[in-house]
């Protein structure tokens, strides 16, 4: 391993930069094949969601003929109530997480107070505790608190599970903001709350959106906890609702696939709104946190 990065870097200073634009055909081919494979199940899902049962049996490989839009009506009646249940819960839990994380990480990044290191270590330790370890006791707890089947039984534990990561993520971001800004605020007589609200938060929108996107995806996809803590079908969330369809009921194939597509709509919207921040946040900062 004689050719280390450092050796290359030192030689770079003396040699002229070569700008090569070599369209790498092999690269493009591999990427295209991989993309086709990645999207194959999704395309399959979309096509099947428009086919009737008879057509799936008779001509599996053909495109839908005719396109059975009724699949979507029937899928909608089953899955829409679950989606409507889930979206506000996810929104509130995500909002709560972002607010709590940004408040906490602001203090950890910009304040000095007795026990700061200790409290921060406590949060770090929490990252190591798998949600599995707390599953049973948490279930017993919410039962004792009488929270079963209420919105809070999802919102509060969801938030509690993401704030540790949230504080870690935001803290490193807050720490990079120049101290001068905060100093100027203090000189102008702003309170700590005002400095947080008017200086720190507006500057950290990218990281807050990243956190919100990660959390919203996580909560929307959660299955085990709602399965345990929501007892009534009318209050149930979408992950559990999707399992409503009997997996061996072949007649319902089309509507079932249509329901999967419908259940994706909130995530598609979220993707369009926040994916730029998410990708940038993860690629830029995954290891710096």
């Amino acid at each position, binding site marked *: 391993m004689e050719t280390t*990065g450092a050796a290359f870097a030192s030689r770079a*200073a003396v040699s002229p930069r070569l700008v090569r634009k070599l369209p790498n055909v092999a690269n493009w081919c591999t990427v295209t094949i991989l993309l086709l494979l990645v999207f194959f199940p999704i395309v399959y899902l979309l096509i099947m969601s428009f086919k009737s049962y008879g057509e799936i049996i008779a001509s599996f490989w053909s495109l839908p003929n005719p396109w059975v839009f009724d699949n979507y009506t029937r899928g909608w009646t089953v899955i829409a109530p679950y989606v409507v249940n889930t979206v506000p819960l996810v929104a509130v839990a995500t909002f709560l997480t972002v607010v709590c994380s940004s408040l906490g990480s602001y203090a950890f990044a910009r304040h000095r107070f007795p*026990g700061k290191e200790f*409290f921060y270590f406590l949060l770090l330790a929490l990252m190591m505790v798998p949600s599995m370890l707390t*599953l049973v006791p948490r279930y017993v707890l919410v039962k004792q608190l009488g929270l079963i089947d209420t919105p809070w039984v999802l919102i509060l534990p969801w938030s509690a599970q993401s704030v540790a990561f949230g504080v870690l993520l935001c803290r490193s971001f807050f720490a990079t903001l120049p101290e001068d800004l905060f100093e100027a605020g203090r000189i102008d007589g702003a309170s700590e709350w005002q400095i947080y609200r008017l200086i720190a938060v507006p500057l950290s929108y990218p990281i807050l959106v990243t956190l919100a996107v990660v959390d919203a995806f996580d909560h*929307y996809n959660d299955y085990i906890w709602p399965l345990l803590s929501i007892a009534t079908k009318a209050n149930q969330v979408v992950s559990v609702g999707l399992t409503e369809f009997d997996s061996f009921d072949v007649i319902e194939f089309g509507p079932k696939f249509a329901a999967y597509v419908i259940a994706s709509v909130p995530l598609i919207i979220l993707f369009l709104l926040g994916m730029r921040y998410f990708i940038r946040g993860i*690629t830029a*900062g995954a*290891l710096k946190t």
Partner: protein
Amino acid sequence: MVTTQQARVPWPRRGGLSLLWWSIYEHRISYLFILPVFALTLVFSYYPALAGLVYAFTDWQPGLDQIDFVGLQNFVTMVQDRYIQVGTQNLLILLVATIGKYLTVPFLVAELIYQIRPYRAQYWLRTLFVTPLVMPTMATILLWQQIYHPSIGLVNNLLKAIGLGALARPWLGDPGTALGAIIFIGFPWVVVLPFLIYLGGLMSIPADVIDAARVDGATALRRIWHIDFHLLVPQFRLCAVLGFIAQMQGFWYILVLTGGGPLDATYTPALEMYYAAFRFGKYGYASAIALVLFIVIMIGTVLNFTLVKSSVEYEA
């Protein structure tokens, strides 16, 4: 809070402890800032975690009034539990598969995309590989269940179409293929999080280093081998840990797809914990399983960070 009441003295009268109270009172705003985080986690994370530690040593079952400490009995039961034994074997296979997935394809795709120019194409390809996130994970799992469907599934129809109809079978319903079918889900396994982590790592390699490699006539493969692997060790380490933790705890999709079956072909310890708690009401036993898994996760994580680090320092 106790602290604020004690600290209402106008000025520290004595040194030592009262000075600390005074200092805490002075910084009360900071504590207010971190209060929401700790209020939430205290109730829904710290308390359950500690309670779980205690439950692990009891015979607690819901509905029974008396809860007894049984020492290590739960752990003895666990060693003898046939489902734990089979589950551990399955888990080892799953762990190798998952960590393998996290370390290979996402890195390969990151490398391919990293070398693609113009940057605009790179950006869009990156987004495209992240796009499958828009499917709820439950929908993805259920879609794959349909892909494995015995009569109208994609896999069997594909086999028939290429003349290999004899191989068609109920992939998830056959004890010999169920675990393999579960592992195959998500093919070609471009796992999003590791992919973005590797890509981020590659993009943070200084341009000088890359240029120098080119000037020295290094091919892309040589560059990957001599530079990228070395500079991305932290990323590989992180992804290995993420895959390890995810697989140690992940059981929900097994619960949905096979429920651990057919027979015990897809059991895992985490699934057994779920059944122990919520099907058989053995909270004490379930907590013991969770505790053991937690300890294994801790050891695995620490080992990964110490071992991998030292070996690389040795090489460099």
